[in-house]
């Protein structure tokens, strides 16, 4: 008997029917999901964009955020943010076409991200108002490690891609398949492993700056 057979055999011996009524189980699972919405924590008033901004400004999250009207203004917003942090305009750019299309003259754009990169600019797939989270879907234009290697991570998120709840990016849209990594990033990296005290920048970025891009609706 294989381990697999033994495990399924033990589950059956504990009372589960060998042939599942798949339709009934799916209906029960859908019924559970339908109970979720009324139990969610209150968000307060405002649009998803406003709630998202408020969450990102809350001290508990430890991030910073600014609104940008047009995509063409992103490089200037990045320059200002780096200068305010006392950093030179040296960045690794996520290979996202919308970022690459911008005018980065005056920047030293690194050819690839280094394992101890100081600053990187990213482009998020979406945002979640409930938690102030950024959503990344790994792919050719979104390497997983971009959200983890830099000390300073500056991320553009289109306002129209900000959704109210965690569940809103938990289902596939038409034509989508699950990527290798679906990652929610909520504030900079932190740890409470020594005496329960919160310290930022444990392994991932110590600083997270979000640019909410209003262009495009």
């Amino acid at each position, binding site marked *: 008997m294989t381990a697999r057979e033994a495990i399924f055999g033990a589950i059956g011996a504990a009372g589960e029917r060998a042939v599942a009524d798949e339709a009934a189980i799916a209906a029960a699972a859908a019924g559970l999901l339908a109970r979720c919405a009324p139990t969610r924590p209150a968000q307060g008033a405002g649009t998803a964009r406003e709630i998202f901004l408020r969450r990102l400004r809350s001290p508990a999250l430890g991030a910073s955020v600014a609104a940008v009207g047009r995509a063409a203004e992103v490089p200037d917003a990045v320059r200002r943010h780096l200068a305010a942090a006392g950093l030179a305009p040296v960045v690794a750019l996520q290979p996202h076409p919308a970022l690459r299309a911008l005018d980065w003259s005056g920047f030293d754009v690194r050819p690839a991200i280094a394992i101890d990169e100081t600053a990187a600019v990213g482009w998020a797939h979406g945002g979640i108002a409930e938690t102030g989270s950024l959503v990344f879907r790994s792919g050719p234009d979104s390497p997983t490690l971009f959200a983890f290697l830099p000390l300073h991570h500056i991320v553009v998120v289109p306002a129209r891609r900000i959704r109210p709840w965690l569940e809103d990016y938990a289902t596939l849209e038409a034509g989508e398949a699950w990527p290798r*990594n679906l990652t929610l990033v*909520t504030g900079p990296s932190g740890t409470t492993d020594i005496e329960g005290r919160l310290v930022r920048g444990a392994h*991932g970025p110590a600083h997270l700056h979000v640019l909410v891009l209003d262009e495009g609706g």
Partner: protein
Amino acid sequence: MSAMAEPASFRARVAAAVADPRLAEAIARTTGTARRKRAAAVASWADFASARALGRDIKDHVIAHLGHYLALFERNARASGAEVHWARTAQEACDITVRICRAAGARRVTRAKSMLGEEIGLPHALREAGIERIETDLAEHIIQLAGERPSHIVWPALHKTREQVAELFRARHHDAARGADVAALVASARRELRAGFFAAEVGISGANFLIADSGAVCTVTNEGNAELTTTPPRVHIVTAGIEKLVPSTAHAMTLLRLLVRSATGAEVTQYTTFHCGPKRAGDPDGPEAFHIVLVDNGRTRMLAEGLREMLRCLRCGACLNHCVVFRTIGGHAYGGTYPGPMGAVLTPALDGLAANRDLPQACTLNGQCQEVCPVAIPLPKLLRGWRDRSWREGLEPATLRRSLALWRFCVLRPRLYRLAAGGAVRLVRMFARNGWIRRMPFAGGWTRDRDFPAPPARTFLEQYHRSSSARGERR
């Protein structure tokens, strides 16, 4: 395995723990913060009670249809390009993991903290196989350097003060921090571990959730070490208990809200990642191979033996933080992988009741653990179940059995019982000084570490009869 030999008996480990004032301080610092932050998070969630009931029902639904969801998960994981392996026991799980490491030519692996990995003894198995292991979670890194075991399921190095961590890092880090400032210690670990992430052939993680309808594996961390562990190496191995299943990603979100608030008081962890299959064509990073090892190790036995509710556990650690016993003796005294109330239920199931019959006894049954559990596990009921079984299997010591037999004899004869109780109260009061008993024959086990309040001069029934007759009531 510990660098320092640990006492073999629970009582001896407890005695050593309560005698250590640094341990008491370390436990109080972390669990105090955790309790405060959890209370604030729950208080600001108006419908926490119904969310908790929903969380419980989601887990119960999955456990009731475990075979169905396991088969569905396996099918979807394979379709995404993952290889799925099955392990009945800890030994089988370690053998499979080591075999995959060897096949990948791994000399070095990185590991993101996983309690299942600790449960199956993976650190030991990797060492036996001559494979270097780099623990990447800060707390796991600390206890790896110290050669110790985790003492908490969320904060494995909870038993260490910052001064002890500073001393350890000074001795072992290449570019160690000076002083015991916590931020400097974290920076020191960041520098030390950075290159390690890219020097491993295999990255090993656990799973917080297994998503049945996509075949994905969810990890949550605050440090970002899981993704740094699972992305650069050529091979990613997940070791996960079969009870981690949820029907879909959306179901996982309800449980995620409950898990994180109960663990740290935050709304969500900094990094929540769903890993689905190996890297896709055109992906700039990610592993070429993705292996998922599904581990039973006693879980199907728990299904059959009345411990079904324990399989709901999300491993948030709230029951540890709120337990008066855990906060007094710390995690190492429990002896198993899992300490605190959830550990006192799990350890007898995993490692046998005979060797662990003390654990369900080391409980005041005050019910705090059940009250803070985000999936409402009836921990006191399960602990009483172990006590009952221990009695029925004859594992309780002869002195206890004789004492209880004597008590039973008396309690079935009310006159004798009243006489004995009245005499006992008067006898015990002879040892009292200023309302407290500091020492008494045959009670050294109690009075060695704490005083005992002197009982009132008369038994309850004596006082009841006296006050009834004073009011002229009929007896």
